[in-house]
């Protein structure tokens, strides 16, 4: 069908638009477009996309075929424990009467009575992000062809949702950085004034012959100095860390903090006071960042532990996640395989050994050992 194809093309165009992250359209707009395309392609009266919030409800619920007025009278959104929840767990569901499904509970008042039902999970990189479903086929029955069309559209929806999340994450990081910059500048201006007050107070203390006044002024100077020191410490803490200035441990901790602020579960445990030549620290930082990126990309939601331990002769950096793991042998040509090769090269440049361990279902551990003695 020509119209089906052009529908899909329009959806693909919308998703491509969303991929050009600089000018990301609203995710809801793209999802609405996908739902409308789904209704047309499956000749359905109603359609919807649900993106669960992880707490039993839906963070987004985009409908088509139901007027805003009707949607408002229905009020409550569905929960994820019913048939829609079953979709999140498995493959497509094609039913002639949804009300006979074992997990169907009830329709709220004013909800149109749906009988036939076709739903597919929205997946991206193996993870279910939501579901796409339609109801009210012109003939009363959906077919397997309809299901295949819906799966194609669901794949687009997956890309769109995943990228919107990435975009939101990068926006949050940018906001954190900008907020820190502004705070830093405001506080720095205040430190200049406090420093000036300390100087002026000392001048006043030196100028007066009144013993009582001098004592009072010096007390004032002392408290101003304390405020100055506190504020300077704050400004310092707000500065973006740099490897050269702050060293590997502080820079890694800062990076982890930024990732945490965008929702990642990362902890860093490090032996303080170990300094390697800048070149080695640079390579270790890049390896750690690549390993962290991989963990976040391929094991989203897993908890990630970064450790940096100094032994007698070697410094060991380890990045471990408890995610799904993977088969190392099967990935030489993939993007992930290239990432691993880059980490290996970086390790070789500083005479370090890189070891990657992973098995499906058993998480992933990247270990780099760099000799300490040779460098100092």
């Amino acid at each position, binding site marked *: 069908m020509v119209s089906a194809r052009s529908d899909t093309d329009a959806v693909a165009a919308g998703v491509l638009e969303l991929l050009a992250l600089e000018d990301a359209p609203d995710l809801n707009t793209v999802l609405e477009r996908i739902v409308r395309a789904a209704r047309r392609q499956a000749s359905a009266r109603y359609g919807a996309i649900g993106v669960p919030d992880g707490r039993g409800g839906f963070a987004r619920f985009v409908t088509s075929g139901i007027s805003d007025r009707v949607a408002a009278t229905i009020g409550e959104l569905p929960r994820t424990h019913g048939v829609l929840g079953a979709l999140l767990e498995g493959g497509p569901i094609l039913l002639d009467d949804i009300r006979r499904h074992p997990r169907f509970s009830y329709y709220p008042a004013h909800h149109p009575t749906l009988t036939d039902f076709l739903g597919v999970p929205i997946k991206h990189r193996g993870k279910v992000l939501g579901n796409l479903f339609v109801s009210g086929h012109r003939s009363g029955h959906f077919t397997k062809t309809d299901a295949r069309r819906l799966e194609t559209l669901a794949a687009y929806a997956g890309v769109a949702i995943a990228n919107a999340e990435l975009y939101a994450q990068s926006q949050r990081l940018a906001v954190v950085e900008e907020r820190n910059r502004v705070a830093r500048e405001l506080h720095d201006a205040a*430190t200049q004034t406090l420093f000036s*007050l300390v100087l002026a107070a000392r001048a006043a203390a030196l100028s007066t012959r009144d013993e009582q006044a001098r004592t009072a002024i010096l007390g004032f100077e002392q408290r101003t100095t304390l405020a*100055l020191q506190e504020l300077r410490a704050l400004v310092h803490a707000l*500065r973006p860390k740099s490897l050269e200035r702050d060293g590997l441990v502080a820079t890694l901790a800062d990076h982890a903090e930024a990732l945490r602020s965008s929702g990642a579960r990362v902890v860093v445990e490090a032996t303080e006071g170990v300094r390697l030549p*800048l070149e080695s620290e640079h390579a270790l930082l890049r390896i750690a960042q690549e390993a962290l990126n991989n963990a976040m990309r391929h094991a989203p939601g897993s908890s990630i532990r970064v450790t940096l331990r100094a032994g007698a002769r070697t410094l060991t950096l380890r990045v471990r996640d408890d995610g799904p793991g993977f088969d190392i042998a099967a990935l030489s040509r993939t993007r992930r395989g290239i990432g691993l090769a880059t980490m290996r090269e970086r390790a070789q440049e500083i005479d370090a050994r890189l070891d990657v361990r992973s098995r499906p279902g058993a998480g992933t551990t990247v270990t780099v050992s760099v000799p300490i003695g040779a460098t100092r």
Partner: protein
Amino acid sequence: MNAPIRLLIVDDHAVVREGLRAFLRLQEGIEVVGEAAGAGEAVRVAAISSPDVVLLDLVMPDGDGIAAIHRLREVAPGVRVLVLTSFADDTQIFAAIAAGAAGYLLKDVDPQALADGIRDVHAGRPALHSSVAARLMRHPGSPRPAYSDLTPRERDVLALVVEGLANKQIAQRLGIGEKTIKTHVSRVLAKLGVTDRTQAAVLAIREGLVD
């Protein structure tokens, strides 16, 4: 009575210049002969007021403080530049010292220590904030200079240079002539490959050449 130290204050914060002026005018032997709010103005004022010491903030909106050190030394030969700035970046400290800054103080320095620092750099002694010295010590990297080439006597002299002593004081401390000390110091500078005492002190601290 020695002539007062002619001082030029360079800081883009008017409030800081005001505080410095208020405090320093009470200091015996220091005379503020000019002020500037930026790097360009500093160079112009230095050219006409011929200061002995420039108190310089490195962070200014109109340009690079390190470049300003070079240019100040061009337009006012013999001038000592004492950096007084907000923060201690390793790169910034080394760049400033390499550009010929005679000292590096931070804007939480005790006022008296600031006045002493101005007198120190004028007398040819380095003035380093304690946290700047600490940063220098922590800095890894760059190959060790030929410390083993220094004679035991030269090492003694270097240790006292790091303490900020002038040749005369070093001579008294070691019980030898000032002229001999002068020779020792120039040999130390040559062996370490540096051009002045501040750089020698920085290198000595950074490389752990002295305790």
